[in-house]
């Protein structure tokens, strides 16, 4: 994975609460066995007419927002299904971060595994960013993962919380699997002291 470096990106607002992962990527697109190529189906049911033409009034279809890389959403973003296709689709359409006051647990984990930053802010910052994006599509936000700061256009800096280990992995472009593999001895020791009670091989 590429290390996450500081970046400045255009913001786009979807001020809707509880955006669930079925909206982010509808289930009919989950028959793929790949994680690439999902960007075109991001928010498919909100974005396209039945015949596949883009809906002009949907914010992500508006040309002035075409370059946006930071999505500013309502509360509780990413609730519902555990599908990692949701962050894959967001990344696939060029998003690098999502701003909300809260994220559903599984979505947050999935986003972090893929270098999509879940930026948790207070309601005031969220509302300010929504207004800014709606007033001027060229509004940008600077995101610095190392410092855990967002810099708003007026120069105001706000901090965001992030799991320390996920941050470490993202800054160094490493993933968590390597760390778990390095714990082989400890895993073996746990297994030896906790004999398995089930054996799935006996059932099939």
């Amino acid at each position, binding site marked *: 994975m590429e290390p996450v470096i500081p970046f400045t990106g255009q913001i786009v607002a979807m001020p*809707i*609460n*509880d955006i*669930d992962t*079925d*909206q982010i990527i*509808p*289930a*009919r697109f*989950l*028959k*793929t*066995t*790949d*994680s690439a190529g999902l960007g075109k189906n991001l928010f498919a*049911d909100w974005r396209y007419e*039945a015949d596949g033409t883009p809906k002009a009034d949907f914010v992500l279809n508006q040309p002035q927002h075409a370059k946006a890389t930071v999505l500013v959403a*309502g*509360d*509780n973003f990413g*609730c*519902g*299904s*555990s*599908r*990692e296709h949701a962050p894959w689709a967001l990344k696939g359409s060029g998003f690098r971060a999502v701003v909300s006051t*809260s994220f*559903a*647990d*599984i979505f947050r*984990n*999935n986003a972090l*595994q*893929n270098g999509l930053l879940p930026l948790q802010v207070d309601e005031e910052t969220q509302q300010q960013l929504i207004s800014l994006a709606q007033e001027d599509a060229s509004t940008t936000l600077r995101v610095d993962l190392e410092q855990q700061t967002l810099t708003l256009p007026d120069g105001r800096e706000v901090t965001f919380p992030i*799991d*320390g*280990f996920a941050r*470490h992995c993202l800054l160094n472009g490493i*993933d*968590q*699997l390597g*760390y*778990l*593999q390095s*714990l*082989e001895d*400890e*895993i073996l020791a*746990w*297994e030896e002291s*906790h004999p*398995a*009670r*089930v*054996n*799935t*091989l*006996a*059932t*099939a």
Partner: protein
Amino acid sequence: MSANGRRPRTLFEKVWDKHVVRAPSNGAPTVLYIDLHLVHEVTSPQAFTTLRERGLKVRRPERTLATMDHSTPTTPRNELGIIPVPDAMAAAQLDVMRRNCEDFGIPLYELGNDKQGIVHVIGPEQGLTQPGMTIVCGDSHTSTHGAFGALAFGIGTSEVGHVLATQTLLQDRPGSMAVRVEGRLQPGVTAKDIILAVIAEIGIGGGTGHVIEYTGEAIRSLGMEGRMTVCNMSIEGGARAGMVAPDDTTIDYISGRPCAPQGEEWDQAVANWRQLPGDEGATWDREVVLDAAELTPMITYGTNPGMGMRITERVPDPDSLGDPAAKLALDKALTYMGLQPGQSLLGKAVDVVFVGSCTNSRISDLREAARIVRGRKVADSVRMMVVPGSQPVKRQAEAEGLDEVFRAAGAEWREAGCSMCIAMNGDQLQPGQYAVSTSNRNFEGRQGKGGRSFLASPLTAAASAIHGAITDVRTLQTELA
């Protein structure tokens, strides 16, 4: 402090503590051992790709079980006893699952296998789901297995790869929350109504970051299948997992199942399970209390499972909400649903009734639906689909003649799978159609693009199928309890 000098611990804490391979260290979260990993075709392919790319094996195939459920057709078998898969993409995904399981040595209940079914139905059914275990699956409704006093939660595909390769996961310790349901349920009110009422109460983000333990007389009085229904929808309240402490009901249910421990091992296991319920004096970070006696059949009116109400209530008015975002959300939901503020849902005509999903497709759910349907006819205007959760559930229902009850009433009796819960397999609502569904999600388009879902219990669903419109089951002339 308890008598032995230890801080009293909750059920969740006991299960968590036992599975810690490494406590938080060097800034990394807890490394948690996973006892049982369930796998399905939709959220696993990319994880196997990662394993291949890195030359890794599946560390514990004997703690891993795969099934096919999400994209599988539920249409009848052909003359060869095979269920054809007409959708090329679904067929390709199922092939990939088959190949992955072969290459990595993972047992698979494939389409047509006599144990195949929805991933959260088969684990408990085979006796693989046991108290005190840690169980994961690339599926948010893994919380279902918590009904046995297991710590069970959904993970993403990257994490599926972590568990396949190492049998462990990095996890921050969640907070804890108790939902206590006191008293006894009235006739016609079920486990589904309990959990819909809980979610309406706490909101769909209300449990975020928490593991819920369900306690109280009404929960204790539920059978295992009712407890599974409750735990299943914990995720719809945002919770990481839901749990119920194991008791005699739990132990009786597991006893004799194919993968249950035998003989001396059984006695040992039961002795361990008896230690799992929370200690006297253990506390949760939050507690919510409901009175079962006051609950009624519930129904959702909106586009998330938190938008639920008593079936006799009226659709709320967005203008009555103070919070502008909540008002907007309700406005948007009612527009999508084609409903008016203040409207009663009783008598609202529906096109489809779906009885199925990992929430309500077990034998007791089918028995309840059949009790209502028996000797009656599904309204001409309604398509009623009954989709058993697994092949064993299907056979059991057929042995009891339930298939005949449904067929005689004009309902479809189908093969096992997720079906219209997620609408990936061709079982789907048409745009604008209304459905009463026993599944767990009423999100926009969840049951088919443009489809509109009312979530309810199997009793309510069946009663609505008969009348062709949303019906309070308590008004039917049927013995309910």
